[in-house]
């Protein structure tokens, strides 16, 4: 029995030794690569903060509204954006290189998936950014219009517009990433369809009177001599 235990232990230790000799060098190599990438990323970030100013990019970020979207406090600068972007890209590259050292099916698949997914992630990010920008633009337009037209609850109307636009952007981004496509699409259809049905029922059953009153008030206001006279001529 002692002999059997000795043989079992020897086999286990032999297997352990085999795995360690196979995988430890790769692990060490991966760690070295990742460390090198980390050091490079930190150096690159430091250098970019020192030398890159990017006034043109700053102006573009301000004028397009991207700066406010990413940092409502208003302190976002192109330097920070570029430096942090380069830092994380180098880190990610180091991580992928480290993974590739192991050269197994699993690690190869992970790397492939990440590499192929990267452009889609970028595109989905751009779609979301565009959705936020468009939502803000149209929401603000709705706010100004509703205030000028004396509509009730202008802020709520503006918020609804922003939410709808953002939701559409999320659906499109999910479709781009092939992530829960059917779920988001179904949710979108249910939301829009439900909203239209709700408004129709409300107007038909209950809000018709209120709507008529609003239109009548609007008509009366526009017929007031003072309103006409004020805008007689510019």
């Amino acid at each position: 029995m002692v002999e059997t235990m000795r043989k079992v232990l020897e086999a286990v230790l032999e297997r352990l030794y085999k795995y360690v000799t196979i995988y430890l060098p790769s692990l060490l190599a991966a760690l070295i690569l990742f460390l090198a990438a980390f050091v490079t990323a930190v150096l690159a970030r430091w250098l970019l903060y020192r030398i890159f100013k990017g006034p043109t990019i700053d102006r573009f970020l301000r004028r397009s509204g991207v700066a406010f979207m990413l940092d409502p406090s208003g302190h976002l600068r192109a330097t920070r954006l570029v430096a942090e972007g380069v830092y994380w890209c180098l880190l990610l590259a180091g991580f992928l290189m480290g993974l590739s050292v192991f050269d197994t099916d699993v690690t190869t698949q992970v790397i492939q998936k990440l590499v192929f997914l990267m452009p889609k992630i970028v595109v989905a990010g751009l779609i979301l950014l565009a959705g936020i920008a468009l939502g803000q633009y149209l929401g603000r337009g709705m706010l100004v219009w509703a205030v000028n037209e004396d509509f009730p609850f202008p802020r709520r109307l503006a918020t609804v517009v922003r939410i709808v636009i953002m939701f559409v952007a999320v659906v499109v981004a999910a479709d781009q990433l092939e992530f829960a496509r059917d779920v988001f699409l179904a949710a979108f259809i249910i939301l829009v369809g439900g909203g239209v049905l709700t408004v129709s029922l409300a107007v038909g059953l209950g809000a018709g009177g209120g709507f008529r009153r609003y239109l009548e008030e609007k008509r009366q206001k526009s017929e007031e001599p003072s309103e006409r006279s004020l805008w007689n001529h510019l």
Partner: protein
Amino acid sequence: MSERLPDDARLAAESIGQAGLVIGIPSYNNGRTIGHVVRAANAGLAKYFPQFTGVVINSDGGSTDNTREAVLSARVEDGHLMLLSTPMGVAHRLSFPYHGIPGKGSAFRLIFQMASALGAKACAVIDSDLRSITPEWIEHLLRPILLAGFDFVAPYYHRHKYDGTITNSIVYPLTRSLYGLRVRQPIGGEFGVSARLIARYLERDDWETDVGRYGIDIWMTTIAVAEGFRVCQSFLGAKLHDAKDPGSDLSAMLHQVVGSVFMLMREYESVWRPLAGSKEAALFGFRFDVGLDPVDVNVERMVAAFHRGCQELGEVWAVALQPETYAQVRKLGENPSEDAKAFHLEDELWTRVILDFACAYKKHPVVSGQLMQSLTPLYLARVASFVQETRTLSSAEVENKIERLCLKFEELKPYLVRQWAGVPDTKLDGQPALEGSERDKEMKLEV
């Protein structure tokens, strides 16, 4: 130029051949009033310019009330009723639908194209809803061009103190301080234009912008003044016209007119920046007093609209206005329940609001339209304050008040030049403006 005319207009121009004077009348559903305007135009040409071949051209925007029929069938007075000593020649009368974006500017474009095709020496454009037009208006709009060599004749009217508030509050003070010429009615609606200036207008390619809509008047005046054409004014008497369609988009009107002024500021920056002060534009005609239609104004509603704007549009105004201006506007809107009769918007604050909006229009092109539309509540506040301050004043006293506003615009022109160039603002007492996080508010922009 004639090849760009619609076929019917081109054929008409070819059949007439040559004309000395053109009177243009843009229209849209003005069947009730346009007949009188056409008769006055014909009578004016016959009485004061019998030596010229005259053409009256109606450029119509698709009227559905038989406006064009009213133009073509308007009866011309017999010569002896007009006390003419020479036989009366009847001017050619044409009516065409115009093409392009719907608006007065597109109508003017067709008129100018026809005037150019006919080789006219001068062209007068008049509104189709005028009730106070007389044949003498035609003389006053065209004679300075024909005899004194002017290129642009702007109208000078007597108007009710509450009529033409956009002119009195924004367009006149601003264009006067920018371009250094006191054209009292820069968007009056009736103008005389020389052939030389017509050619310049037709060279431009911005007819498809707000120029094509309500911005056409200020566009014409600004080009004439800024590009060194000879500009004068002619006294026409009282301006009485039909009420505008109450369903028309009032915010869009303000947006298009003031937006056109701001758009032209960008183009003519090199012209207005070095100028300071202003001088009078020559004024022709015998000035006399006239009675005017009363104008009622609902001040309470305007003040309520301003307070609503303060509550809801703060984030938009914070983008357009400088921090100090915005702080003062907010302070003004602090008491919504305050009696409307006590509401008062200082000239200096109003001037800064307009100048800040002009700079914001330049700095934020993506959202300039929204910024302009958000000006409406502030404009209503200004009108309400103006009405309150001038209730008991005579027309002459009101004119003095407007003059003081104009001088304030001229005084703050250095402020405009600094803001336009992006130089940090200074406070009213000359101390450095708000710094740091307040300046970073401009990051909360744009879209």
